[in-house]
């Protein structure tokens, strides 16, 4: 079964590889661009600083200074590669907010973008095969919810009010959620990301199941 599913995905992606690549890249850019845009609009402040860190050197430092691999991995997931933000000149140049690109969190976004792109090319593939797949609108809605959850759980913003550490709940606090509720929700970040990915994986599996059984029926007929 798994082999069959992999073959369907490979065929669908191969047939629509331009669409798949554009969608994956586009979603990544859309997400990070949107995150920055929303922050700029929220604060009415254009970023006035940009830092690019030597992330390889940073990871090296973490591994050198942390005897436990488990600890090292937990520490490096919050290390930024790129940071941009606004330093308030009226108050001694303190960075009031910043926007970060953190590789492990970017990886989740990339995975999600690839999954959503796969979902779309499978939809196109099934249409071309004239394969009936349940309620397409519901599937698209579910994909939207899944990617929304990952988008929310992967936001890498900092705000001095949240003690200047990058956390997904900073996005919620910036959008007006009370800080107590936002901080209460903080430990659920990983679960929200997992839920989002699981939801998209589930709808992809539904698509694959429909396509595979349709192909089976076609062969039998």
């Amino acid at each position, binding site marked *: 079964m798994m082999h069959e599913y992999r073959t369907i995905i490979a065929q669908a992606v191969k047939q629509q590889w331009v669409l798949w690549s554009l969608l994956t890249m586009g979603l990544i850019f859309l997400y990070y661009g949107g995150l920055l845009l929303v922050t700029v609009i929220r604060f009415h402040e254009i970023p006035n600083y940009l830092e690019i860190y030597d992330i390889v050197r*940073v990871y090296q430092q973490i591994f050198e*200074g*942390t005897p*436990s691999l488990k*600890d090292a991995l937990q520490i490096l997931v919050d290390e930024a590669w790129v940071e941009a933000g606004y330093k308030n000149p009226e108050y001694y140049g303190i960075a009031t907010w910043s926007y970060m690109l953190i590789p492990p969190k970017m990886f989740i976004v990339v995975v999600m973008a690839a999954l959503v792109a796969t979902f779309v090319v499978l939809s196109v593939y099934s249409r071309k095969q004239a394969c009936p797949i349940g309620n397409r609108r519901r599937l698209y809605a579910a994909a939207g919810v899944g990617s929304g959850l990952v988008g929310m759980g992967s936001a890498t913003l900092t705000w001095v009010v*949240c003690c*200047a*550490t990058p956390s997904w709940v900073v996005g919620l606090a910036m959008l007006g959620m*009370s800080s107590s509720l936002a*901080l209460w929700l903080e430990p659920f970040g990983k679960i929200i990301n997992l839920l989002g990915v699981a939801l998209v994986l589930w709808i992809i599996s539904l698509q694959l199941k429909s396509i595979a059984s349709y192909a089976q029926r076609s062969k039998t007929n």
Partner: protein
Amino acid sequence: MKNSALCVQVLALFLCAGSVNAESIRIAIGHQSKCTDTYSAGIIVKELELIQKYLPKEGKYKNAKYEFDWKDYDSGAPITNQMLANKLDFGVMGDYPLIVNGAKFQETDSLETLYVAGTGYNLNGSGNAIVVPVDSDVYTLADLKGKSLSVPVGSAAWGMALKALQDAGLNTEDVLIKNQSPPVGAANIAQNKVGAHGDFCPWSEIMEFRGTGRKIFDGSEAGVPYLHGVVVRKDYADKYPEVVIAFIKAIVTAGEWVREDPVRAASKLEEWTGVEREVQYLYFSKGGALTLDPTIKPKWIEALKFDHAVLVKEKSIPPLNFDKWIYDGFIRTAYKEMGLDYEKDMSYIHDPKPENMKLHEAEIWHKDKGVLAYNTITEMLDAAKKYKTEKTLRASYVYDDVTGLKLFGNVATYVKSKDGKYTAFMRKPDAEKFIALNGGEIYTFTALAEMENKPSIAKLN
């Protein structure tokens, strides 16, 4: 063959020994140049290059090359993250972030920090405060019912605000708590966009100095000591204990440098940090809010344990083994090597009320004449009026009659007794209590300074 192998071994040993001697030792310190309490282990040590004075140069450090990396932060939390990532060896921060630091490190399998020295304290907790817009009708915490209070969540000021609200019989349903950073909170106070803002020093004093905010609650009222300190990664301290000792010696020297000439210190600190010298003087002058004492006192350990309990309740932070975390061995050695008496300093606790009442009643920072001391508030007010007209008045300072804390003269509330003597208060309710017991009338600084033949307009209703 044997000989050549031996030669290789000897050569390898020689090269290794050489590399140890020529080892590059990083000294990476995370500090906060906008938090006055950290200056004696931060900006002063950095700018005066004080650690360099005490760094070991003998034995295994003979050819060591020291590389300094000072990093400035807005709060303690990112310092902890950078220490975890091995980008910083030392961190200088306030009591609540210190506790989070210790707990976060102890939560890992392989890392720890040590709390090795203090940087400054205030016995009663002054240093955190709650400020309202200067024209607000709010004078007490009770008046905040139904209004908003912004505070940087997770900071020392946040812990203070929670306790203060609890003590005032208010809960989070009575007051809308908003999470705001120091600059955002200060801007919102200036624009009257928030009911009150809780913050750590020097932000409340900056607002008072700029004439945008007025304190309604000072951390001293919470009665829990307020302190800042230094943490170091344990692996670093184990490897380079002499460097940790050198850093602590630098902290002691920084404190001496401030005490030697507070006006010079305030002026230099303005140059280095951008925080106005008049605000710096409020902390670092004789009778100022900060006590630059790095010793680790049993009372501070109790205060930190209290703070940890608050954080556990409010933020579910991990447990912290204080016995493993607090280590006074380095500071004791530093004191001993500097010929200082650690026990004496450790057992002394500066109480501003009795100590500051021994000082001149008021001071003025004159634009050209420097700091001028006055025996009575009345004399200071007369001089202030004159200098204000001449536009040579930088700032004025008095002491709160209740706590003994140094205040800006322009934001204090004054009571003029029947005998014509003025007494200064930080809070209006305290002035009212004083009047209820002793009689007298309440005045504000502006009104007093402008008062000539029309005293009626000076009264504060």
